[in-house]
């Protein structure tokens, strides 16, 4: 049996026990409390307390709620003092430089603390300092990794930012914290995007501030850590905070792509509050995470935007492909079934129409192959209105009765592709939402430089659907008979917008009318040539 070498002297033994007790603490507060208790136990002292950054952070030996803070803060390190209820006491203190603090014990009676005891207390103070430092770092790391996790799990940005400001208050023992970012619409201004511990009446006053003002504004303007002690007397302090007697503040810049776009600020009302080096590092680390969160959120938003437009692009492209294909398939089916019965002229026309749609498909596929995004808006060129309308209706009038009212005899400057697309979409919609045997009526007008094309079908609008809903993507009416993804009206309205036009809908007396309106100027000479052609 091997017996480990035993520490036989009392001090070593006590220090080992002290280390064992404080190192198992879960947080700095508990380590501090255990530290003062174990120190008092070791010296058989009645009183023990720990001062850190000018404040008593742990104490033992006083009735609950009756810790005489001023007395303790003023208690000399090595002295004989009279304490209430204890009589004459001897005190002993060990300083903790890094925290502007000290560990103090007071023992009743007049037995002085010997040199061995003083050394032991110094050792305990050192152990306590290291342990508390370790726990603080550990808590900071835990907090940061929690924030990192929420960033990587794509938690809502506000949630992440709130976790940072709350974390700043808790980790730094501050009273308030705020995160500001520069207003994208006005770079001279900054806006509070998250705060913790800031009362509402102050928040209202500081919600918008000029960059450069206050600790937070300076951190952005100078792109560095700003530490302010004696805040209330700082001439550049933010007034509402100064009026509330804020004692100390510090602010760290928050970056996006390396540029200071905001700042994370903490403040304390406690007298003589000094932010230690480790607290300054902690704030910088938190600000760094705010930077991460902001940069990441923007990237995510861009990705989502890209994703959205890609999905939309695909949906629109497939719709574009499908519509002409439907017509082509219809033509071929008619020819297959009734080819022999059809007059040669009619057959020719059907084939011509199918061919035209095939050309459109070819052009569209060409466009795709060239890698062009579906630029819906094309070029404006002269077009003969009657032909434009009739060519857009071609194919539909084979499957349904389409009556076309007189079309103004005009040649206009228009985006032919766009007009065709909208008419097709509206007619397709009419076909989908009206009885097979019913008539679809087309009326075209031109007045004060505005073209109006009405597509009128039998039916009714669903009662609970707003006009906005009708034009939203991926919406399909309940009675829809034809397959599709519900993009037709959406595309039509988007395309109409590219012509600076609009689509309205109205219903009544068992009919629904969609009206396309768009401005177009008359190009008479070209009309003639077009007509001639």
């Amino acid at each position, binding site marked *: 049996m091997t017996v*480990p070498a035993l*520490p036989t002297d009392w001090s070593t033994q006590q220090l080992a026990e002290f280390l*064992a007790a404080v190192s198992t603490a879960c947080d700095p507060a508990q380590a501090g409390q255990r530290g003062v208790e174990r120190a008092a136990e070791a010296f058989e*002292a009645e009183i023990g307390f720990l001062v850190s950054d000018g404040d008593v952070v742990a104490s*033992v*030996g006083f*009735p*609950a709620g009756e810790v005489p803070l001023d007395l303790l803060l003023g208690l000399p390190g090595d002295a004989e003092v009279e304490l209430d*209820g204890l009589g004459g006491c001897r005190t002993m203190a060990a300083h903790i430089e890094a925290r502007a603090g000290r560990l103090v014990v007071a023992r009743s009676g007049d037995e002085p603390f010997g040199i061995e005891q003083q050394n032991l207390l110094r050792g305990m103070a050192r152990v306590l300092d290291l342990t508390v430092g370790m726990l603080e770092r550990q808590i900071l790391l835990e907090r940061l990794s929690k924030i990192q996790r929420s960033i990587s799990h794509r938690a809502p940005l506000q949630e992440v930012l709130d976790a940072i400001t709350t974390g700043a208050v808790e980790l730094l023992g501050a009273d308030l914290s705020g995160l500001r970012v520069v207003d994208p619409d006005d770079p001279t201004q900054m806006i509070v995007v998250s705060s913790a511990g800031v009362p509402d009446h102050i928040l209202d006053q500081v919600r918008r501030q000029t960059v450069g003002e206050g600790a937070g504004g300076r951190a952005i303007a100078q792109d560095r850590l700003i530490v302010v002690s004696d805040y209330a007397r700082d001439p550049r302090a933010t007034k509402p905070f100064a009026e509330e007697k804020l004692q100390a503040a510090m602010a760290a810049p928050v970056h996006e792509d390396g540029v200071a776009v905001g700042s994370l600020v903490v403040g304390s009302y406690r007298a003589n509050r000094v932010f230690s080096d480790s607290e300054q590092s902690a704030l910088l680390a938190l600000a760094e995470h705010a930077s991460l969160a902001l940069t990441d959120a923007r990237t995510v938003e861009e990705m989502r935007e890209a994703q959205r437009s890609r999905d939309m692009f695909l949906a629109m492209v497939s719709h574009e492909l499908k519509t002409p294909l439907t017509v082509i398939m219809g033509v071929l089916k008619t020819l297959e079934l009734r080819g022999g019965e059809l007059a040669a002229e009619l057959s020719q026309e059907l084939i011509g129409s199918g061919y035209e749609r095939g050309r459109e498909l070819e052009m569209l596929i060409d466009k795709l192959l060239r890698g062009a995004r579906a630029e819906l808006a094309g070029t404006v060129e002269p077009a003969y209105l009657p032909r434009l309308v009739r060519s857009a209706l071609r194919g539909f009038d084979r499957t349904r009765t389409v009556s076309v009212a007189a079309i103004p005899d005009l040649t206009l400057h228009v985006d032919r592709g766009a007009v065709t697309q909208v008419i097709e979409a509206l007619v397709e919609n009419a076909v989908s939402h009206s009885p097979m045997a019913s008539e679809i009526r087309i009326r075209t007008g031109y007045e004060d430089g505005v073209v109006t094309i009405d597509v009128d079908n039998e039916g009714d609008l669903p009662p609970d659907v707003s006009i906005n809903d009708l034009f939203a993507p991926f919406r399909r009416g309940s009675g829809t008979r034809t397959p599709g993804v519900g993009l037709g009206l959406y595309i039509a309205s988007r395309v109409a917008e590219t012509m600076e036009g609009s689509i309205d809908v109205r219903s009544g007396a068992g009919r629904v009318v969609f009206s396309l309106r768009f401005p177009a100027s008359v190009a008479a000479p070209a009309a003639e040539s077009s007509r001639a052609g």
Partner: protein
Amino acid sequence: MSEDRWVGVGRSAATDARLAGKEATDDALKGPDAKLVIVFCSSSYDLPELLAGINERSGGAPLIGCSTAGEIATSGPAESSVVVTAIGGSGFSVRTRAATGASQRLRESGAEAAGGFVELEDRPHRVLLMLTDGLAGDQQEIVRGAYGVVGAQVPLVGGCAGDDLKMVSTQQLFNDQVLEDAVVAAAIGSDAPLGIGVRHGWRKVGEPMLVTRSSDNRVYTIDDRPALDAYLERLDAPEEVHTDAAAFTRFALTHPLGLSGRGGEAHVRFIGEADFEDRSLGCIAEVPQSGMVWLMEGDEDSVLDATTAACSEALEALAGEQPLGAIAFDCIARRGVLGDEGIEREIGRIAELTGGAPVAGFYTYGEIARTRGISGFHNQTLVVLAVA
């Protein structure tokens, strides 16, 4: 002054619980205006009945109490009995509290039970008397919790309830309630001094051993070996102690561990039980990891000398005033050393020293006394509270 204060002690060994409660209380109520009733009784009684009898006679004066491993009265030690102490008169004020669920929140329960102190009328002399469940866990944590409430100005005194060494469950009594896993406490204020004496009379023997792994009040390894093996081997314990739980507890009573202290008497840790599976030792209070422990020994002389010293210390603290009564918290382990005759002599000695003032008390699983310093939990110790 003393006409404003009185202390009375009554005992009954009646088998009927209600009757026993009434008899003991009648003897204890020496005067009017009872401020506090303190009950020490065998857990073999029907405790609700016992309390009903006591409260009927006391008129419902605030009551704290506990089950024991033997009761002490002026006439000597006994078992299967009830001892009632009553204090009263305008010279005393009392606030009582109870905290339950102690094993899950040792420190908080100590603080909660001590909470009556906050409301205690300001008197020149004060003490917090605590009765705890010694099987709930690290008792020093309970004491720390109470110390955090009352601070260094107020002494703590008391003991851990017993269950006749069955080590299964103990009861704490509060007014008409029978509690388990609880801490009950009375904050007592008096116009006259309250004296506390503490001694154990045990000595360290042999070389120290190092606690290489412990957690709260369990010791897992000593000198890097399973604690139970190291302990039994060092003591060359009889065979049955290695395997039988009851035999182990009896053996461990007189073979406690001692903890190093700065000076004066070392702290003693009573080993309540052993886990034969994981080879650990269960103590009544924390044995710090990395701490040094010694095996301790005591004999009748050293233990009785401690009795004299503890009593004298308590009486001296009365600053010349005559004691009205004394309460003894006497570790059951001392009984193991003294034997039946020895404990008769011990109580006789206490009664002699208090000069005819009534004596009450019980055999405990741990003792509480904090007058100086901060450590207030003891084992194998006699704690005496003298009331003037």
